[in-house]
């Protein structure tokens, strides 16, 4: 994932990291995303990195750096719903300490039942939002009746 270049600072440190699907990789310190609080159910884990699944598809792995076998498939919700708006933009910017809406990256977590990729769902109720400038993020909880935690992505 693109991250904000750190101008006028020395090259970021490179750390080895084990991943669930990509073996050992090297992660630059400026690629590390900190989720505070962590994802519900996994609140004790905070450090993550985004890895492309394949260059030609929009799926990313949100790989945990604190627990190598913990990884989530995520996608930019604009690929699913062009007008997705989880809550008040001003409040989200305030909560994330963002100065501009462009600083914020939204991702929704996908659930794929084993062996049934056609039944993939997206959790529109619990998007992850990341301030790209600070690389701090959190899982929002959107209580809107039209955003399901099991939004079907493909026709049944």
């Amino acid at each position, binding site marked *: 994932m693109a991250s904000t270049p750190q101008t006028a600072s020395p090259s970021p440190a490179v750390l080895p990291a084990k991943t669930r699907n990509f073996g050992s990789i090297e992660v630059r310190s400026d690629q590390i995303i900190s989720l505070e609080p962590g994802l519900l159910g996994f609140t004790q884990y905070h450090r993550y990195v985004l890895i492309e699944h*394949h260059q030609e598809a929009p799926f990313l792995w949100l790989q945990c750096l604190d627990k190598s076998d913990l990884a989530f*498939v995520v996608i930019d919700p604009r690929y699913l719903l062009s007008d997705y708006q989880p809550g008040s933009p001003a409040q989200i910017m305030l909560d994330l300490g963002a100065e501009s809406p462009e600083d914020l990256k939204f991702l929704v977590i*996908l659930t794929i039942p084993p062996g*049934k990729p056609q039944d993939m769902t997206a959790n529109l109720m*619990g998007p992850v939002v990341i301030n790209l400038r600070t690389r701090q993020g959190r899982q929002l*909880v959107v209580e809107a009746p039209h955003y399901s935690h099991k939004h079907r992505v493909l026709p049944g």
Partner: protein
Amino acid sequence: MLILTRKSGEGLFIGDDIRITILEIRGKQIRLGIEAPTTVVVLREEIYRRIQEENLQAAGTRDIDVTEIAQLWRQE
């Protein structure tokens, strides 16, 4: 479980920075006021459990199924 009895208008602290106030008691409903740092998750139980359960299921997504989905995506 710690059990405390409180009246309307009274409150309690959890640690130094989480404060819960009983705002109103009306029949079977109680209105609570909660002051907590933004890093603390405060949710109704049923909402919390729904998101938590979905995260747990999502963590079981297999690489092979994502590869299949990615292939479908590229074909479209």
